[in-house]
């Protein structure tokens, strides 16, 4: 937009507009990332900027590509589980769950009920931990430091519990095809309940710190609006899609495990606090989901069958060799729909093809359209609201 005698408008504050005359402008390429702290990992955005305005932002991926799908064709089915941990490393258990749900559709195994309950409890705990990171880092992107510390303090409690149950803090390998690695330790449920009671007021406090914070609201409200139909066309899922007002949750709409028996709400923004589809809506959905996850955990502990005659590996096959066929299995991850397309020839113990449909990858694909015409600081707000984990984007 190199112009002679051009006029340029910029907004200084809400009621002061600056008009500059004869200011020649030209487009500038600004490379953001792959080591930029606000890109949440090794994402590179090549921005074409006109002053402070982004005219085009092209994402470049692959810095963390570890050939997940190629590895899958060389190891057997149970050995893929640890690889799924390393995709979305903030919600490893949810990734394992999605993969095991997909494989179990091809196998004819009956999963013991207690296993299902434990699976749901640990994956909801992991969902809360993941949302806490999302909210905390989002706040730090926008300049609020305190919520980040609060989030990480409470996430630590969850990681300690998961470490106690699974033996690892982030890369669990806990949910196995057909069962679990171990039963939960004695006294686990009591400690989880104690955490739930401790955490409820903290979650409220966190809500107040952010959603009632005027600076935070000003940075996010009305920024990066995604209409519902475009979001569906872009294949968005999870909190991103619900942020646009679509009440779609795989735990409800394509139920797996014991979710049909549980009572929980699928929160969507009502447009009172935020503009439906903007960054603030996506943040609100995550914040409200934490409360729903707490409810699910309480119900699971309440309904969970006892340990009499329980063997977490009872239904784990000696050799996982699914019947010939294909399956597309999926589960609701903290970041959206994580799906696995698995092709089995019925003879081999490793899949012919295993494709991971990553929610972050799909959500990020809308970046180009979302960022067009936005200010550079708003770009940071938009990336943060997408809540991407580059390990899952690049696989």
């Amino acid at each position, binding site marked *: 937009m190199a112009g002679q005698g051009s006029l340029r408008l910029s907004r200084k504050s809400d009621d002061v507009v600056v008009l500059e005359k004869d200011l020649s402008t030209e487009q500038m390429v600004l490379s953001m990332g792959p080591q930029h702290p606000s890109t949440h990992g090794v994402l590179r955005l090549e921005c074409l900027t006109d002053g402070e305005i982004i005219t085009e932002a092209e994402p470049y991926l*692959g810095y963390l*590509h570890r050939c997940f799908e190629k590895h899958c064709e060389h190891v057997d089915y149970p050995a893929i589980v640890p690889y799924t941990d390393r995709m979305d490393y903030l919600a490893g258990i949810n990734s394992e769950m999605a993969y095991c749900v997909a494989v179990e559709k091809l196998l004819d195994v009956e999963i013991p009920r207690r296993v299902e309950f434990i699976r749901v409890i640990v994956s909801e705990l992991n969902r809360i931990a993941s949302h806490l990171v999302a909210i905390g880092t989002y706040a730090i992107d926008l300049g609020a430091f305190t919520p980040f510390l609060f989030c990480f303090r409470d996430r630590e409690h969850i990681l300690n519990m998961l470490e106690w149950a699974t033996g690892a803090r982030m890369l669990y390998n806990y949910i196995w095809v057909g069962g679990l690695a171990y039963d939960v330790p004695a006294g686990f449920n009591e400690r989880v309940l104690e955490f739930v009671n401790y955490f409820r007021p903290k979650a409220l406090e966190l809500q107040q710190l952010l959603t009632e914070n005027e600076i935070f609201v000003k940075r996010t409200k009305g920024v990066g609006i995604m209409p519902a139909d475009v979001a569906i066309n872009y294949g968005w899922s999870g909190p991103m899609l619900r942020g646009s007002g679509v009440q779609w949750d795989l735990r409800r709409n394509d139920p797996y495990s014991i979710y049909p028996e549980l009572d929980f709400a699928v929160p969507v923004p009502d447009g009172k606090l935020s503009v439906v589809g903007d960054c603030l809506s996506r943040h609100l959905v995550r914040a409200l989901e934490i409360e729903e996850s707490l409810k699910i955990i309480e119900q699971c502990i309440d309904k969970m069958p006892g340990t009499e005659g329980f063997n977490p590996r009872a239904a784990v096959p000696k050799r996982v060799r699914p019947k010939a066929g*294909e*399956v597309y299995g999926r589960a609701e991850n903290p970041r959206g729909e994580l799906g696995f397309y698995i092709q089995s020839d019925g003879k081999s113990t490793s899949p012919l093809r295993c*494709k991971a449909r990553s929610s972050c990858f*799909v959500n990020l694909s809308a970046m180009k359209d979302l960022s067009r015409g936005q200010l550079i600081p708003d770009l940071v707000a938009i990336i943060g609201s997408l809540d991407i984990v580059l390990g899952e984007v690049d696989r």
Partner: protein
Amino acid sequence: MEEGKILSNAVEESGAAYAVIHEKFGEAISAFDDNATMPFFEVQDTALWTDIALFMRDHPKLKFNYMACLSGVDYLEEGKLGIVVNLESLGVFSHRIAVKVKCPRDGGSIPSVAGVWHTANWHEREAYDMLGMPFDGHPDMRRILCPDDWEGWPLRKDYRVQESYHGIKVPY
């Protein structure tokens, strides 16, 4: 038994959706495979894939508005490459169906549906990156996960990794 019942309902719904598509496109698509885990049909006349996709998205009885997944697959024995597309009607109906499109391994290409579902844009770039079949009419046909100057197509069954990349030894 409860679960089996739900599954068969799902397959029935996909079958009903298939009937609508079959009525319009006839021999261009294969018979319906009503397996329980992933019911699908195959597009025989590959050139028609974009039209079929648009029809599936917009027909008032189908409304497949959501593309859940697009996976590139190497069919080594058949000498073909292909894609498997998982489609779903989100919020309108509850049916889902999978579609397979195949092309020859050497020099074949598949029509792009990036104009029908935005999400197909990156999925098709990934399939191209991994298997090497170009998508005709794609707005931005570049590699996405591998570097632009990477040699070969990693997910082909007969892939052999290059010896060195910019002076770095690759196989280890």
